[in-house]
């Protein structure tokens, strides 16, 4: 299976074959041709049989990346994971009751690491594209990211949970991912992309308005919303640097919003209040 996420190409080798077939179906929208070029990373994933009571339901969720020389390990009982970014390969071997979901967690980890290594970010946020321009909404769980997506059927939704950002010669671009809230499902258009025009920290409020976020606070917000990477202490100095570049290139603002789509008036209209 060859995937293209954020313009990066992944070759995924999955065992057993039944999981590979299910994964090919799950990620069909992101499938890339094997002949389109060499992969940025080759993943080998092996799932072993597991009993329901032998492990926590999704042990990968509780496993952190640990630095081992130039590589990164996912090291926990029964889990053997390694990401070798310099050699462009990664591997995972674990017992799993739910291989498809564990594969998805692993893909999130790998994509966060790959994006960071290439100067980009996998950000916890929702992103919408309107008129070719992408708007990224960040905030803690429950802040309204999925609500913003649901309130915007007229916009192309890149994601409601994790969005890929990468710098290009034309500025920062936002890319859709298959990493949506598991309960919410996905929406057509997730493979799209757009030039990143604004980043908004969501604040639920009766009034609708924008408020600039000081640069330092913006950097802190962005870094706090880069899961996986911000769990690796050795990556923090670089993470702050990337977030500073992003906050310098793209306006970061607080968006006070209520549960209707009036926020688009201040975002797309350029006004600070609605």
């Amino acid at each position: 299976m060859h995937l293209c996420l954020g313009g990066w190409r992944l070759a995924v080798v999955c065992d057993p074959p039944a999981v590979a077939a299910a994964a090919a179906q799950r990620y069909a929208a992101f499938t890339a041709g094997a002949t389109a070029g060499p992969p940025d990373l080759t993943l080998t994933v092996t799932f072993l049989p597991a009993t329901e009571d032998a492990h926590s339901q999704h042990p990968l969720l509780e496993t952190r990346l640990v630095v081992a020389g130039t590589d990164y390990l996912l090291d926990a009982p029964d889990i053997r994971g390694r990401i070798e970014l310099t050699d462009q390969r990664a591997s995972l071997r674990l017992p799993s009751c739910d291989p498809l979901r564990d594969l998805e967690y692993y893909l999130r980890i790998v994509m966060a690491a790959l994006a960071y290594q290439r100067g980009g970010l996998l950000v916890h946020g929702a992103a919408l594209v309107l008129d070719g321009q992408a708007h990224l909404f960040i905030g803690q769980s429950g802040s309204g990211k999925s609500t913003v997506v649901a309130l915007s059927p007229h916009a192309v939704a890149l994601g409601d949970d994790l969005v890929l950002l990468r710098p290009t010669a034309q500025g920062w671009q936002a890319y859709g991912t298959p990493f949506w809230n598991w309960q919410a499902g996905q929406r057509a258009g997730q493979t799209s992309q757009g030039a990143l025009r604004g980043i908004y920290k969501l604040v639920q409020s009766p009034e609708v308005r924008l408020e600039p976020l000081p640069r330092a606070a913006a950097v802190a917000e962005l870094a706090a919303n880069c899961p996986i990477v911000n769990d690796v202490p050795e990556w923090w100095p670089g993470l702050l640097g990337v977030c500073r570049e992003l906050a310098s290139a793209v306006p970061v603002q607080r968006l006070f919003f209520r549960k209707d789509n009036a926020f688009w008036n201040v975002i797309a209209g350029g006004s600070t209040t609605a």
Partner: protein
Amino acid sequence: MTATPDAAQLAAVPHQAPGIDSRLIDGEAVLVHRGQRMVRVLNSAGARIWELADGARTVGEIAAVLADEFAIDLPRAEADAAVFCAELVTRGLLTLNSQRVSLDRLSEHSI
């Protein structure tokens, strides 16, 4: 109203704790406590205190710099600096020592 710091508080030497990554951005500071996985932002006065907390200056000396640069009364600067340093100590971002560190030790903690 903030209490006036005593002589011991002003003589204490604050030092950035190990395991903190920091960036000065537009006069403010972003601090990351690796162990606690916490990110904090300091305003301009706080960022200046953080910058000056190099293990070579006392709280009183840092307050004198603040009083000069921010054009505030020295007693107020001393009170603010003492309270702020104590808060950062509570959060594990600073240590308060009774002696100044030597210059070669300073380099161990530069980021």
